[in-house]
């Protein structure tokens, strides 16, 4: 989504931060080359993957090690300056959107794989290491890091931790939270903390789980231990065509009912295949209303057996065509189309806006019909790709930011999809995070008591609220402004409660 400079009023007021004093202090902590504060140097950091929201920070620090991060955080804590951590900036919810009165702390220079132990099957890495770089380093040992977001070439493990990133294989292999053993980080007070360890559990509360998906609000991640898993001997993917998108949805449920957990189970609708095909020549069936990509992995015998069972289920559910990848090249080609869906949307439309709601699988047909109605209501096209196995939707709304009014209609459209996701028993975000973008959706999904609980969790780590302020959890005031406040148990609209 590209478009306009966007700086909503933030929830806490940090306008009294003294930029010159801050820069002078930071200059004492890091080498000159690692501190940016001239306007033109700051511009490349003004947004993440969601370019609709832009904000230039006061300064950017390119940290080289944990000691520098400790020093920067201690200073910012003392001066009351907001800090936003940034990995590769591929986030799609404005999570790494800088704060106009704060420091942007980039992990771009912390990209070393510190240790890779093929026997223990772990890798210890710095936060700026790219997701794919871990699997590449592990490959000679027949191992890999399982979560594979489509952005894996670029996105960092620190960003993956912050968003609990998933990928097309997480139905079987889990999300980031299932594949990370230990996170080392620094709190805003400059204290070094370790969550988890190299055993399978740690004493006390599961703070590791709390850290994962916390969108950079609790601590800055400085080191991560990930689990490496053996590469399956072989994998094959079925491409199944359906004449009706509801049949494709039913097939997803039927596969699971048959006791099959595919290694990947993805759906694309007709407009989506039409968008990617000219771009990647994946060989998709362009006549189908929807296609399913259904992967099996394991030993050759196992894959053969499972592909047979999958094929039977898909045929019974009315698949109009079935192709099984005959070799690795063809398998990768089938996946290439799916993984290129976002860039393809960018090719056929000046702008696109990616949503990330998750719903119970059985509601797939219902929400698709809902989205089709909304296309008419808002006069905008939408192409649909899904992590179908997980019920995680990525509707891509196509728009043109240069057409007056389209961006507002797009936002309304997106918000309505998310509200419908919640109404169907799902959530506003499966893997991209709330960030800056979905604050309004949070007011729909959670009531004031729950939001207050989230703020209390935040305060347990960051009492002053300096790490990534104004993201992930809206203030009760903000929700009231949105007019979506859930009034609970007949309480007042603005309960001034410290605790819940």
């Amino acid at each position, binding site marked *: 989504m590209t478009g306009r400079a966007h700086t909503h009023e933030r929830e806490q007021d940090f306008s009294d931060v003294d930029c010159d004093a801050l820069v002078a202090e930071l200059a004492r902590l890091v080498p000159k080359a690692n501190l940016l504060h001239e306007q033109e140097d700051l511009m490349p950091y003004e947004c993440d993957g969601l370019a609709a929201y832009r904000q230039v920070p006061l300064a950017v620090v390119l940290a080289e090690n944990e000691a520098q991060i400790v020093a920067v955080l201690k200073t910012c804590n003392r001066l009351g300056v907001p800090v936003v951590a940034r990995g590769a900036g591929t986030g799609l919810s404005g999570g790494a959107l800088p704060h106009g009165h704060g420091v942007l702390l980039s992990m771009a220079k912390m990209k070393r794989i510190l240790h890779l132990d093929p026997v223990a099957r772990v890798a210890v890495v710095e936060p700026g290491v790219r997701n794919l770089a871990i699997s590449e380093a592990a490959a000679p040992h027949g191992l890999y890091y399982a979560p594979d977001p489509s952005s894996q070439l670029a996105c960092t493990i620190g960003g993956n931790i912050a968003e609990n990133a998933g990928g097309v294989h997480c139905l079987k292999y889990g999300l980031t939270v299932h594949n990370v053993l230990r996170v080392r980080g620094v709190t805003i007070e400059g204290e070094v903390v370790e969550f988890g360890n190299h055993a399978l559990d740690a004493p006390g509360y599961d703070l590791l789980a709390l850290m994962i998906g916390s969108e950079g609000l609790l601590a800055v991640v400085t080191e991560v231990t990930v689990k490496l898993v053996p590469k399956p001997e072989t994998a094959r993917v079925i491409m199944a065509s359906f004449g009706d998108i509801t049949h494709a949805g039913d097939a997803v449920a039927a596969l699971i009912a048959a006791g099959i957990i595919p290694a990947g189970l993805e759906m694309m609708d007709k407009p989506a295949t039409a968008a990617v095909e000219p771009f990647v020549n994946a060989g998709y069936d362009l006549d189908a209303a929807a296609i399913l990509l259904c992967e099996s992995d394991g030993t050759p015998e196992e894959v053969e057996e499972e592909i047979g069972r999958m094929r039977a289920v898909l045929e019974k559910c009315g698949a109009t065509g079935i192709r099984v990848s005959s070799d690795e090249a063809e398998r990768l080609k089938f996946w290439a189309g799916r993984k290129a869906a976002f860039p393809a949307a960018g090719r056929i439309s000046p702008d696109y806006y990616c949503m990330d709601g998750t719903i119970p699988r059985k509601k797939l047909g219902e929400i698709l019909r809902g989205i089709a109605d909304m296309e008419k209501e808002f006069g905008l096209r939408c192409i649909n790709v899904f*992590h179908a196995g997980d019920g995680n939707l990525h509707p891509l709304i196509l728009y043109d930011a240069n057409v007056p009014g389209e961006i507002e209609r797009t936002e309304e459209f997106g918000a309505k999809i998310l509200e419908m996701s919640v109404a169907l028993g799902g959530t506003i975000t*499966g893997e991209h995070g709330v960030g800056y973008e979905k604050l309004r959706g949070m007011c729909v999904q959670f009531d004031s008591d729950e939001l207050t609980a989230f703020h209390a969790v935040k305060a347990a780590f960051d009492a002053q609220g300096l790490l990534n302020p104004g993201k992930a959890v809206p203030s009760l005031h903000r929700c009231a402004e949105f007019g979506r406040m859930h009034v609970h148990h007949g309480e007042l609209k603005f309960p001034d409660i410290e605790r819940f």
Partner: protein
Amino acid sequence: MADLTEQFKERISVAGADRPLCIRGGGSKDFYGETPRGEILDTRGHAGITDYEPTELVITARCGTPLAEIEAALAAENQCLAFEPPHFAHGTNSATSFATVGGAVAAGLSGPRRAAVGALRDFVLGVTILSGVSRRLTFGGQVMKNVAGYDVSRLMAGSLGTLGLILEVSLKVLPRPVAEATLRFDLPQAKALEALNAWAGKPLPISGSCWHEDVLTLRLSGAEAAVAAAKQKLGGELLADASTFWNDLREQRHEFFAGTETLWRLSVPSVAPVLDLPGEQVIEWGGSQRWWRGDAAVAREAATKVGGHAVLFRGTDKSAGVFQPLPAPLLKIHQRLKAAFDPRGVFNPGRLYPNL
């Protein structure tokens, strides 16, 4: 099937730091954690599976629902709780002493399949709790992927009821494996650890391991073809009718667990070498979980030296502390979280750590 939320709220409102509550299901895990204190709040009346749709791979149940009831409902659909939570309800009257799902989540314990599929916390999708000031709060949900808000549901797993009263929980479930086989190998400890770590780096369908007295027992689970191929590759001796063995291990009915001396659970990296501990050990989870009976200082030192921690799992003398003490910055975060969810200190005081 009853909904006791309102009664629970009343109990919480009249409780206080001087009159705390001891949240209790079937009491099967009374032995676990620091000694329970407070007036008993019995969760067993708040029971029943509230939602289960096999094709969604999710089951939702009230806290007092017997774990056995959940497992039976899943088995009827050929599904299971893959992390094999121990019940520990043996030896007492099964009509009154049974494991509840709320207790299982609060204890956070997992069984033999943990190293292969993940722990209980990995399967928690959502919870509804009552906070220490009787607020009903829902986190997570019934869907597989959800990053809206902090992951408070997983935080409840293993928190021993110190943060809130779990009213309802949604757990991810999995299909039962199509095929299973159990193999036996005569191996001394060092060789067994070496083999387990080497196998774990290969795409093999290993779903459980147990080393005791120079015998390594290994379970395979998966597709027929995968189990057959792995059997061939690994060799060993086939153990017929092995489900009793794995159930006994999960429920600690295995002979090793019969003693009375303090039982320690050492949670260590799987590659940790043979630990310098006198006497018998049972080793599970591919080397990551080691059971031992003996002295606190020895257990803690052995686990810490290799980067792990030791839990006083069963014992009468808990003066050494059940759980390994936390570093100061982490303890501070724990205290603040406790104060956030239970500001009046009414839930299970001291059950996890003496001052929490």
